[in-house]
């Protein structure tokens, strides 16, 4: 297909605002009468609250109100209602909000929090998910089994397990009995922080007892609306959630984070906007974390390299409130095999309460955890079988007609893994690997990936198109621009669909739940696909409307008319042309009356045919879209220190159609570097009291410029997806998925050491290398 606007490297439509400091984020908003909140937070990982005395705090200068959770019976959550806006009878993690001070300035609020006296009775706590499921483990939610929850999310009474996803394909024991080679290993994916550059912020103002306005740094304004409506039993239509630009999301600003708490405390000062912006420390200790998985995997294969059976268990340390993590638990189960066909597969994935901050969505949503295991295990099986890893991968790749672990048959339009792996191999192995020298071991590794967006079956996106009288278009959508570049790709999709230049398209820059179309939430890399399709439908309807109007004006059947953007022509009359813009507000005829309707249309899209996972056996038609790709790494490992240096990271992803190739490239590199951080530098740690040890930029090591490999390869493979806008599919989270196993496979290649835990610690690696590389020294 020849496209005019799609596939072009359009410069980001938000770039000028952002590079001049004009782009507005929540913390930049100042409202008349605005008050400021600061939160007193628990210093215990698990403790009963015996008393709270806020009398001294209330006397402090500038203080308007001190709010605690005492007497509050509100519990919120999208899947499991297990979280109070402020701690009530006990605290479940260090950093949980215990009391809020609302004052005229942030500094006054901060000073007053120090005057609040809280008496605690410390309780035993648990951080490790495997400890948390032991019989003697402290129970974190005594009412676990009584919480209001959506069907299909079973809890186990008197345990810390709040969700168990079980999935079966075939008969795994039979599969193992047929296997010639069986490997069994245990893995660890640490807790991570998203560390969006913009700390979470929220402003809430109650105008009446049943209507409020919220400004929030959220990826999910409609979920915020739903949860706040439920918390206070007020009509959703009365809740106005507005989202300006978002300074990074990565899942950590979905489904909800601080918004329920801010809405709760603001209710105590009606008529006043109350603002809370987290400090960097609070963003670590008191918003959401990601990952945190301990896993066990057993896989069997035939001598000829046919993968037969896979059994995997995932134990998630999901923190103090499980609601945020329960869908991650399920999504992990969908992709436990990695992108390979196993005839027999059984998965158990557990969401477990622990005394850490709540753990939720984080770029990749369960997929990086599953791929850490699947892509390491494939490397180990290959060596056992004595064949190359890539040969084993190719032999078992999910491709046209193969059946994945949830029971869905893969279509050609889902993408071409073979081409992705070819591209990565070509990039990685184009030059001979350097031989080990006195300083370093050298190695290369690959890993494949697949991803599906986790969602509810009716998760939908809307678009509203309004044509202006000069022929430009206002397009309102609720996909959140958080850096991924959706504003730009959607501009290109709209320009293509309406056959006008991108300069004639203005995608809404802010989202407002009272004016913007419905959007489930901006998660799962799905904005291009779902909002893109909604825009295309709205555009088709606008074009149809224009044809009907011209038909009335010129007495021609609509089928005779051809829409060409600025002009509408006739098939039968070559001399006929009509300026589209004259139709914008309905056509004003020379006789002085209106003809036709104004050009204002809506479009919607949800992925058809998606269902909840089947009861008991899991899987079914629970995945709406698939994307495949491959990644690779070249490393050198210091013989002296065990330090790992990455010299090359590569990705080839089948994105169907690159709507904006430049934007896709940036997104791929950024994602690979996030995977790099997980593999080598990032890990949330707790001390012996269960308090986070490294909630800051100095100790939680994020990749910096010097971490960037000398070489970064991005290959965009384009096998069109017939369900996507102009063939495009989801890609945003994907590059973060398989970099850790690719790096670990490269380390194995370099040193002969098989690693099962990240981040890779030089000292441990050096100890494992011992006297030298297997068979070399």
């Amino acid at each position, binding site marked *: 297909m020849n496209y005019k606007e799609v596939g072009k490297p359009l410069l980001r439509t938000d770039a000028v605002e*952002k*590079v001049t400091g004009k782009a507005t984020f929540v913390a*930049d908003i100042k409202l008349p009468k605005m008050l400021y909140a600061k939160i007193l937070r628990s210093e215990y990982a698990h403790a009963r609250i015996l008393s709270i005395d806020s009398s001294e705090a209330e006397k402090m200068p500038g203080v308007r109100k001190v709010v605690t959770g005492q007497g509050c019976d509100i519990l919120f959550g999208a899947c499991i209602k297990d979280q109070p806006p402020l701690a009530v009878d006990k605290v479940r993690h260090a950093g949980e909000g215990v009391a809020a001070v609302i004052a005229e300035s942030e500094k006054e609020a901060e000073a007053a929090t120090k005057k609040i006296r809280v008496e605690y009775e410390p309780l035993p706590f648990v951080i490790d998910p495997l400890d948390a499921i032991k019989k003697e483990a402290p129970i974190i939610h005594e009412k676990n089994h009584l919480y209001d929850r959506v069907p299909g999310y079973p809890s186990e009474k008197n345990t810390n397990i709040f969700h168990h996803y079980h999935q079966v394909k075939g008969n795994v024991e039979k599969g193992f009995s047929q296997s010639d080679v069986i490997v069994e290993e245990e893995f660890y994916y640490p807790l991570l922080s998203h560390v969006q550059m913009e700390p979470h912020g929220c402003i809430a103002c109650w105008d009446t007892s049943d209507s409020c306005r919220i400004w929030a740094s959220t990826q999910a304004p409609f979920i915020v609306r739903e949860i706040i409506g439920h918390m206070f039993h007020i009509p959703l239509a009365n809740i106005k959630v507005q989202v300006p630009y978002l300074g990074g999301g990565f899942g950590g600003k979905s489904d909800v984070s601080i918004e329920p708490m801010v809405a709760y405390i603001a209710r105590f000062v009606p008529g006043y906007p109350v603002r809370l912006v987290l400090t960097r420390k609070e963003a670590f200790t008191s918003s959401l974390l990601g990952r945190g998985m301990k896993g066990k995997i057993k896989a069997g294969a035939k001598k000829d390299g046919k993968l037969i059976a896979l059994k995997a268990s995932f134990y998630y340390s999901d923190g103090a409130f499980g609601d945020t993590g329960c869908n991650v638990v399920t999504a992990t189960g969908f992709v436990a095999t990695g992108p390979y066909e196993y005839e027999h597969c059984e998965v158990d994935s557990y969401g477990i309460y622990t005394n850490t901050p709540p753990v939720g969505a984080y770029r990749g949503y369960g997929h990086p955890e599953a791929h850490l295991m699947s892509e390491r295990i494939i490397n180990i099986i290959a060596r056992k079988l004595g064949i190359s890893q890539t040969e084993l991968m190719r032999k078992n790749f999910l491709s046209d007609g193969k059946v994945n672990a949830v029971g869905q048959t893969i279509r050609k339009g889902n993408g071409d893994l073979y081409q992705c792996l070819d591209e990565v191999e070509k990039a990685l192995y184009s030059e001979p690997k350097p031989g080990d020298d006195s300083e370093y071991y050298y190695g290369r590794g690959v890993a494949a990936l697949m991803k599906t967006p986790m969602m509810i079956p009716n998760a939908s996106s809307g678009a509203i198109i309004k044509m202006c009288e000069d022929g430009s278009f206002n397009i309102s959508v609720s996909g959140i621009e958080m850096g991924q570049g959706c504003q730009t790709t959607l501009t290109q999709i709209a320009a293509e669909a309406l056959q006008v230049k991108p300069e004639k398209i203005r995608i809404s820059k802010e989202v407002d739940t009272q004016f913007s179309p419905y959007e489930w939430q901006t998660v799962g890399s799905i904005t291009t696909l779902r909002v893109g399709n909604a825009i295309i439908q709205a555009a088709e309807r606008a074009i149809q409307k224009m044809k009907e109007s011209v038909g009335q004006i010129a007495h021609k059947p609509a089928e005779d008319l051809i829409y060409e953007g600025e002009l509408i022509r006739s098939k039968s009359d070559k001399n006929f042309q009509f300026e589209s813009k004259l139709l914008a507000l309905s056509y004003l005829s020379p006789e002085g009356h209106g003809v036709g309707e104004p050009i204002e249309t809506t479009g919607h899209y949800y992925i058809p045919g998606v269902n909840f996972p089947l009861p008991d056996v899991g899987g079914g038609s629970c995945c709406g879209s698939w994307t495949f790709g491959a990644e690779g790494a070249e490393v050198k490992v210091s013989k002296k220190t065990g330090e790992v240096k990455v010299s090359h990271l590569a990705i080839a992803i089948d994105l169907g159609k690159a709507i904006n190739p430049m934007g896709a490239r*940036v997104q791929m590199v*950024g994602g690979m570097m*996030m995977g790099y951080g997980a593999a080598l530098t990032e890990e949330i740690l707790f001390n012996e009291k269960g308090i986070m040890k490294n909630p*800051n930029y100095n100790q939680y090591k994020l990749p910096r*410029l010097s971490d960037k490999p000398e070489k970064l390869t991005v290959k965009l493979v384009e096998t069109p997806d017939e369900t996507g806008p102009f063939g495009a599919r989801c890609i945003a989270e994907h590059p973060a998925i398989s970099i850790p196993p690719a790096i670990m496979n490269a380390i194995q290649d370099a040193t002969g050491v098989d690693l099962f835990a990240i981040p890779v610690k030089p000292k441990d690696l050096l100890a494992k290398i011992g006297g030298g590389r297997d068979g070399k020294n």
Partner: protein
Amino acid sequence: MAKIKVTITVNKLKHQLDVDEKETLLEVLRDRLHLTGTKNACAYGACGACTVVVDGNAVRSCLLKPDKYNGSEILTIEGLADGDKLHPIQEAFVEAGAIQCGFCTPGFVMSLYALFTENIKASDDEIKAVLEKHICRCTGYEFIWDAAKLAQKKLQTM
């Protein structure tokens, strides 16, 4: 808290203010002057998001106390472009694809402005040393590096 009288020039405009003795330049810019283009991401000088140029030097405005900024000439991201005409460093960031969420962008741009104003021929290592002090969570740095090199080229050919 004791108040201190300070005089500062920000983006060529002079301001006389009574500030708290511990009030940082970042707080003055954002809360008093409503220049919110300068971002607060850590408030302890580790990420570079709040970088502005003070008397020609790139500084972390979150760490700067009144005695250090009183009497200074300050340039923030809002003062860099000439009306609608972007500064070449800004142009380079737009063209190189160096911007995603945009929260770290002003800090990177201001640091490079100070560097290239002092030494347009800064070596790659000198540029890297400056960029190393900034955190970007979105782009993976590749395109920020490209933008820095492109900016240098644009400035050299001006």
